[in-house]
């Protein structure tokens, strides 16, 4: 009798606990009562007091778990140390960063820097890089009280991860906090919309289409979505309130871009995908988000749209046309790996795991390569067009001094640097870096080596050196040394 009562009481306690815990599930995003294009987390609402207006710096941080986070952190350390002289004193290139667009592992670094600024250089290693996040997430999922929560339809592994990131890394901060900081850089944390297979960014411009207020969204939640690798984490589900309305007014560029017959296909498809959130015929009440790496593993697609068109709330072309920006710098921290297989030496076909591994990363690596090339080609095209105009002007002045050119094209200085392990000259070190796993746990020594490698690649980058010399003709690159003991420990042989 006593035992029956105890069991009954225990079941009662567990039931109450389960109800309480499942009730703890919170809505990820809230409704925007009224659309206002001038408020919310947008680049235009961040201050440029300390940020140079003349130079526009975009960073893109790739995915790749802790490897990518450490690599992008090393790039920030390099930019902190990249100082140049201006009439008023010395500046750090770090303070000129306008936008960081990131994916998956890179999103941890981007978000942490935006929230805590220089505090990242003292706190981020212990807060994230040196933490066994993967092990912690597994332990959380196996903790019995969480089973009840995970059984709920509106709470899944990605929400559990978001809670963990919120408590351990991002201190409960929201995008509203980022907005109140009122400082650049503007961060674009990218996830992937499962239905569209395209990137979904955590900006108010994107959330306007959902009639949702980004300010109430936790930064940790967006980072969890950005790094929700299929299988490891579940998709993050957010509400689309478009059907309930918020007086949303589509920007003119979006209306113009929705004309299929008059637009380049890429522009039309971009607009069509964005409109799908508002389109009443689509009825997309819930949006399911996965790892940003599935849509764009280096986070450059959004910046490319802003660089090459007026189809963005922070169009760089518009800033160039307004003469706000005279120099554009794009630095991509690409922590991609490269498998070194023996397939080609064997008659037997690769096994299932090898095939799955290839399918998971091969196509995306090719797509990432194409995205980097798109930006480079765009800059090359602009430079060639400017040269063509200048050559023509010189010829006209020489041959026909009375004639005038149809208009004046103002010069813009454009630089694109991609930092990746490919550029490591030492073959053994390169292979060692390219063989690192994609995981949310790496030994401290590996993290430290990745940071050093990132700084080495930055300082050795031809494009980066060109930027620094353009800013300060007397600039000299720092010598970055890889610690031999560290290297021997991480990369034996």
């Amino acid at each position, binding site marked *: 009798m006593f035992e029956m009562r105890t069991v009954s009481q225990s079941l009662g306690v567990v039931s109450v606990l389960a109800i309480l815990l499942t009730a703890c599930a919170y809505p990820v995003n809230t409704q925007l009562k009224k659309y206002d294009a001038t408020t919310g987390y947008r680049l235009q609402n961040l201050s440029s007091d300390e940020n140079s207006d003349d130079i526009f710096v975009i960073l893109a941080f790739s995915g790749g778990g802790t490897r990518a986070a450490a690599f992008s952190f090393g790039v920030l350390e390099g930019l902190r140390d990249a100082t140049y002289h201006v009439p008023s004193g010395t500046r750090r290139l770090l303070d000129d960063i306008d936008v960081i667009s990131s994916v998956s592992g890179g999103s941890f670094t981007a978000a942490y820097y935006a929230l805590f600024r220089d505090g990242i250089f003292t706190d981020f290693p212990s807060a994230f890089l040196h933490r066994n996040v993967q092990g912690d997430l597994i332990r959380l999922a196996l903790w019995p009280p969480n089973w009840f929560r995970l059984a709920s339809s509106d709470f899944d592994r990605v929400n559990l991860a978001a809670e963990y990131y919120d408590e351990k890394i991002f201190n409960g901060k929201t995008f509203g906090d980022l907005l109140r900081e009122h400082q650049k850089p503007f961060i674009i944390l990218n996830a992937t919309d499962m239905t569209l297979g395209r990137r979904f960014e955590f900006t108010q411009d994107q959330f306007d289409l959902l009639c949702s207020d980004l300010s109430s969204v936790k930064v940790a939640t967006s980072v969890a979505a950005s790094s929700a690798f299929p299988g490891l984490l579940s998709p993050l589900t957010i509400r689309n309130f478009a059907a309930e309305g918020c007086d949303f007014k589509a*920007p003119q560029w979006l209306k113009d871009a929705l004309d299929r017959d008059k637009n380049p296909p890429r522009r039309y498809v971009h607009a069509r995908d964005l409109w799908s959130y508002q389109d009443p015929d689509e009825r997309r009440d819930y949006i399911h988000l996965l790892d940003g790496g599935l849509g764009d593993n280096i986070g450059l697609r959004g910046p490319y749209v802003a660089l090459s068109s007026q189809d963005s709330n922070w169009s760089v072309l518009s800033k*160039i046309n307004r003469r706000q920006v005279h120099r554009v710098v794009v630095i991509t921290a690409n922590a991609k790996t490269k498998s070194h297989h023996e397939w080609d030496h064997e008659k037997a076909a690769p096994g299932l795991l090898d095939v799955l591994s290839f399918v998971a990363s091969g196509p995306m690596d090719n797509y990432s390569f194409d995205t980097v090339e798109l930006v480079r080609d765009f800059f090359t095209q*602009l430079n060639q067009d400017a040269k063509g105009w200048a050559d023509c002007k010189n010829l006209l002045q020489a041959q026909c001094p009375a004639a*005038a050119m*149809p208009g*004046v094209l103002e010069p813009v200085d454009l630089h694109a640097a991609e930092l990746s392990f490919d550029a490591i000259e030492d073959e053994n070190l390169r292979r060692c870096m390219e063989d690192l796993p994609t995981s949310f746990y790496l030994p401290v020594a590996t993290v430290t080596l990745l940071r050093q490698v990132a700084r080495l690649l930055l300082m050795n980058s031809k494009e980066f050196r060109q930027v620094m010399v353009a800013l300060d003709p007397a600039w000299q690159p720092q010598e970055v040394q890889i610690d031999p003991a560290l290297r021997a420990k991480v990369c034996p042989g």
Partner: protein
Amino acid sequence: MGYVIVEFPERREVFIGDDSQGYNRNENDEYRILIVGDGPHTFRLGGVLNYAPSSQTVVVANTTTINPLRVIFKKNV
């Protein structure tokens, strides 16, 4: 990517959609060549509404810096 000149007898701010593109002419009263993504765009001018049309949607395609698209606004008399 395309190149556009916005013709108007005066120096005026140019808008594509809601986004300012700076002025149509520079300080020397020369036309400025604006860099614009390909496809249809809706142009208008800033300042006093003494021009026509009040806005126009034109398709930017196949332009060069030597042969930019001319978007022409007339001053109302």
